């Protein structure tokens, strides 16, 4: 049996969501999906197109992205230049396959809040904002959200504020993967180290599922490749 951490599992599970040939975008503060995209390119998806804010298409390495996933290193290591404004346009045209986005609150109906807690104009808590979410979640073919926190305040019956909704596909957390299907956030798989009871206890709405599946564990090859492409463990930045 292989030895891995939860950040390894999440990174590999994200990589497994990506298919060869897809155009895939990540934004700022997105080390985990950045590493996952690079992992997918190294293994099963060599023709995946890796897009990012600074504009480096298919960076040959992500080893310099120490504190930022929007730095010049991605352009320096990239094979061509295709910056943010054009990536947005690409998504508007229906040509962005996958977008990785964040958020702070999610509800069972697939609504995302990255804006405020409390009144929008006089907020109790001002959140960083949805960045590209409000235009990418409706237009990317598949929006994937990753979140390193899974608690009842994150997954709620009804979000405080709807920053956006749309083509949400999956949400991955340290406990499970949700899939958005038939208008509801449903349990896709739970991670091997947890239980349905724990996931339910940490989720603010009643879990929807037909059967219990477990998230695939990272393979030895994935873990080995991860160590090569992400030696400084940026994938765990948020842990």
């Amino acid at each position: 049996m292989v030895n891995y951490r939860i950040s390894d599992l999440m990174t590999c599970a994200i990589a497994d969501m990506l298919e060869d040939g897809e155009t895939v975008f990540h934004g700022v503060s997105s080390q985990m999906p950045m590493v996952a995209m690079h992992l997918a390119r190294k293994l099963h998806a060599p023709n995946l197109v890796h897009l990012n804010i600074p504009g480096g298409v298919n960076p040959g390495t992500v080893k310099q992205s120490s504190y930022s996933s929007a730095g010049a290193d991605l352009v320096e290591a990239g094979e061509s230049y295709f910056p943010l404004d054009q990536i947005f346009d690409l998504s508007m045209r229906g040509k962005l396959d996958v977008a990785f986005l964040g958020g702070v609150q999610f509800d069972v109906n697939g609504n995302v809040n990255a804006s405020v807690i409390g009144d929008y104009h006089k907020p109790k808590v001002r959140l960083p904002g949805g960045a590209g979410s409000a235009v990418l979640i409706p237009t990317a073919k598949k929006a994937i959200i990753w979140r390193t926190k899974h608690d009842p305040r994150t997954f709620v019956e009804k979000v405080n504020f709807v920053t956006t909704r749309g083509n949400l596909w999956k949400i991955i957390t340290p406990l499970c993967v949700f899939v958005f299907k038939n208008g509801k956030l449903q349990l896709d798989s739970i991670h091997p180290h947890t239980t349905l009871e724990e996931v339910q206890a940490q989720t603010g709405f009643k879990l929807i599922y037909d059967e219990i599946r477990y998230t695939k564990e990272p393979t030895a090859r994935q873990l080995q490749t991860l160590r090569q492409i992400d030696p400084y463990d940026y994938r765990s930045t948020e842990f």
Partner: protein
Amino acid sequence: MSKLQSLKKAVETIADQSTLALGGNVLHRAPMAFVRELARQEKSGLKLVKTAGAHDIDLLCAAGSVATVDAGFVSYETVYGLPPHYRKAVQTGMVKANEHACYTVISALRGASANVPFMPVSGLKYGDLIEHNDYFVVVEDPFTGEPVTLVRSIFPDVAVIHVQQCDEEGNAIIAGPKFEDVLMSRAADRVIITTEQIVSPFQIKQNKDKIDIPAFLVDAVVHVPGGAAPTSCYQKYDVDEQPLRKFLGLKEKQEVAEFIKNYERKDYQQERGTRVW
């Protein structure tokens, strides 16, 4: 025609209540020396525009210079966390946060660059941002009858852009990612360049294919080596972690003023008018 100006003089041209587009993105190539001088000169009521801001917006909020922020995202990246001064300013009602999708900032600047009052945005379809913000409106497309969301154009009075190389006339070269800076230089009424290096006419000629902002669009050139610090400047320096972390922990107005004062020697190093090639 040389457009070289001291940092102080260039900042003096900024009126209170101006709309300022700030170059760079999150922790990269923000025009920090200019931003600090805005705070030193106690500008007020500034309307800041940027897709994704961090230390620049946070510092001006801490200094009490800001009225509104139009942005898609305001935060330091993961390792540094959230922008305490911006959050506090918004939560106490000092600053109005106009939340955009980053793309709608881009669209609003594209609108300004073409001098049209609005831009249609196809992706903005759902959610409360449309409802709660008067700069978004849904209309009927006159060609098809389908609904289409418009964002009101944002016309910056000034774009402030920090670059690696610029000649005295204003031909400016950005190394590495350009973010929204080139667009800002076309959307703003005036353009102020702060630059790591003043390069000679000969050098700029050798690199003319790399000029991102041609001189005739530029109103002033300010020579400030280190002018993006403590954010990064590609090919020149990386983020300066220590002051960034220190700033995040500041609480009092006086501490903020001191933090800004501590940069004076660096920010003014070219003020003596020395011509440096």
